[in-house]
């Protein structure tokens, strides 16, 4: 039994990692009161920028950094439109996704069908040799450990640090924050850039480490799942992690079911990760009060400092 479960859990963590990055980034953005629906587009741009850089330079880390920069650049477009020019956040976010879909397909043309040669995931010394936990947790790509560090940092920053408190206050009541003297627009800019950068890293992980290949539209709705995760996780980082790994787990479990000879209609299996994630998160967040308590009050509203 353990022998079958270990590879399932190990693969689950890899499959959930792009979501961890994208959803944690969006969480910080939304906590500052900015609703960026362009996650899917930013992930795609991050994926192609990361893949193209990794293929041309042969350096996977450079690829990851390029993906991060490209994601941040996409979010900067969004920030200029919504924070400086006061455009509607929902419309701008949707436009960003469409733009990212088209641009990544266009830029990615020469990289279609190209394979990236990379080493297998390394095993951490000592920790990788632990029974059960070793193969599940400590034989992953380095970027997976980075995602855990980002989770710890975001949790600490938002709820334990002074800067995090300021950021949350900007999301709750930009007027009060402004009145006290905090630079609301600048804080929202930084939060948006952070979200874009992490979405870019999520996309780059997908194209550079997970696949590793570029296919048009390869993010395949993960950006939307990340957005849904943030809401259903009631803006709590730990619940975001649970949701992300749940999605990854069901994605992987369908393969194991097939390989084990369990006959379930294929289209249903393909839809299962989305269904399962949404259902579980809806159940977790069915308490309206928790949503109201945790959702940033000014989410999605433009703010013009007087």
């Amino acid at each position, binding site marked *: 039994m353990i022998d079958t479960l270990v590879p399932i859990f190990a693969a689950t963590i890899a499959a959930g990692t792009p979501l961890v990055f994208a959803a944690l980034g969006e969480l910080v953005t939304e906590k500052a009161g900015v609703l960026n629906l362009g996650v899917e587009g930013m992930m795609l741009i991050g994926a192609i920028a990361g893949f193209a850089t990794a293929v041309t330079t042969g350096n996977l880390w450079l690829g990851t950094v390029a993906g991060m920069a490209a994601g941040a650049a996409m979010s900067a477009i969004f920030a200029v439109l919504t924070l400086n020019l006061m455009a509607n956040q929902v419309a701008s976010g949707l436009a960003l996704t469409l733009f990212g879909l088209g641009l990544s397909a266009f830029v990615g043309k020469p990289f279609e069908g190209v*394979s990236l040669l990379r080493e297998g995931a390394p095993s951490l010394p000592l920790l990788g040799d632990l029974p059960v936990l070793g193969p599940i947790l400590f034989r992953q790509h380095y970027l997976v450990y980075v995602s855990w560090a980002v989770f710890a940092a975001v949790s600490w920053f938002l709820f334990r640090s002074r800067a995090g408190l300021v950021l949350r206050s900007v999301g709750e009541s930009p007027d009060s924050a402004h009145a006290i003297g905090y630079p609301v627009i600048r804080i929202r800019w930084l939060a948006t850039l952070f979200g874009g950068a992490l979405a870019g890293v999520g996309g780059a992980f997908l194209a550079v480490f*997970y696949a*590793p290949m570029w296919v048009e539209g390869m993010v395949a709705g993960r950006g939307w799942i990340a957005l849904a995760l943030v809401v259903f996780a009631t803006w709590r980082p730990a619940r975001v992690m649970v949701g992300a790994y749940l999605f990854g787990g069901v994605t992987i479990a369908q393969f194991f079911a*097939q390989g084990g000879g369990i006959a379930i209609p294929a289209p249903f299996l393909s839809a299962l990760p989305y269904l399962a994630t949404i259902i579980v998160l809806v159940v977790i967040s069915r308490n309206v009060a928790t949503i109201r308590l945790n959702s940033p009050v000014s989410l999605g509203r433009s703010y013009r400092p007087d």
Partner: protein
Amino acid sequence: MNTQRITRWAFALAVGTALGSLAAGPAAAQAPLKVGFVYVSPIGDAGWTFQHDQGRKEMEKALAGKVETKYVENVPEGPDAERVIREFAANGYKLVFTTSFGYMNPTIKVAQQFPNIVFMHATGYKTAKNVGIYNARFYEGRYLCGVMAGKMTKGNVAGYVAAFPIPEVLQGINAFTLGMRSVNPKAEVRVIWTNSWYDPGREREAANTLISQGADVLTHHTDSTAVVQAAEEKGKYAFGYHSDMSKYGPKAELSATTHQWGAFYTKVTQEVLAGTWKGTNVWGGIKDGMIKLAPINAAVPKDVVELVASKEKDIGAGKLHPFTGPLKDNAGKERLAAGQTMGDDKLAVMDFYVEGVQGTLPKQ
């Protein structure tokens, strides 16, 4: 007034030129024959379309000066395909190869409107006076890879990542299984369906899953190199498909079933050039050079290489047919009596797993 007159004049000139070039068409026999290719995916550096493009290049080289080729890649199966095919036909192309199953109806439709142009459609079944079809017996290569797999496996489990449960894919799975069990009766094959021709992420996950379920030899019927790469990373063996993928798995890839279209494309083009082309229905295999095994990895022992070579010769000579009775499906039902070989009509509608494949076939 003036501008209108100029426009009218320009229009007349354009029409005149167009008519003139039409009239000049047949007279200019020296002009190279224009040959068009429609590809379903990007050419990339390995895979289905890559092999067709290799064939195009070989043909162009063999008939240098006599032909001029052009291709359009990544054409979705559907209305877009019809537009691309019609554009070739309308622009003076005399021979058009449409290289994916889903181009069947668009090809037939355009062919009816351009009776003087020859169309060649790969892997379909509809023909017309000016539409020929061609395909290759991929399963012959699969059988040989299966023989190697049966000899090289240690755990007697092979993993197969497949796209869609259609006859062509099932022929491959079954031939591979029969080849494997012909030398290793204990062997079994596990299949995972990805429901996509090209999704490297899913293909890789499927491969990793099969490995963790005990498969130590992998192969795939999808378009990317992900399965061979996954095998390389995990230190397992794999067989490439479409193209030689040893670049992506120098240790893992034992061999590959590769498609060779060059000689065939050259032959068809020559026939069109000479005006001797007749409607064709070609289903070529090892005998015709349309299917070849990629160079066999040095990890395969000499006696196995020799065994495969002799079986390859037998298939080429028609002495060995991978689907020879007695043949049972994996539910125990007899599909072919002893001594019989499966006819092309039965092969074309295959809808079962042979004995030795695990699981039940998903309903389409």
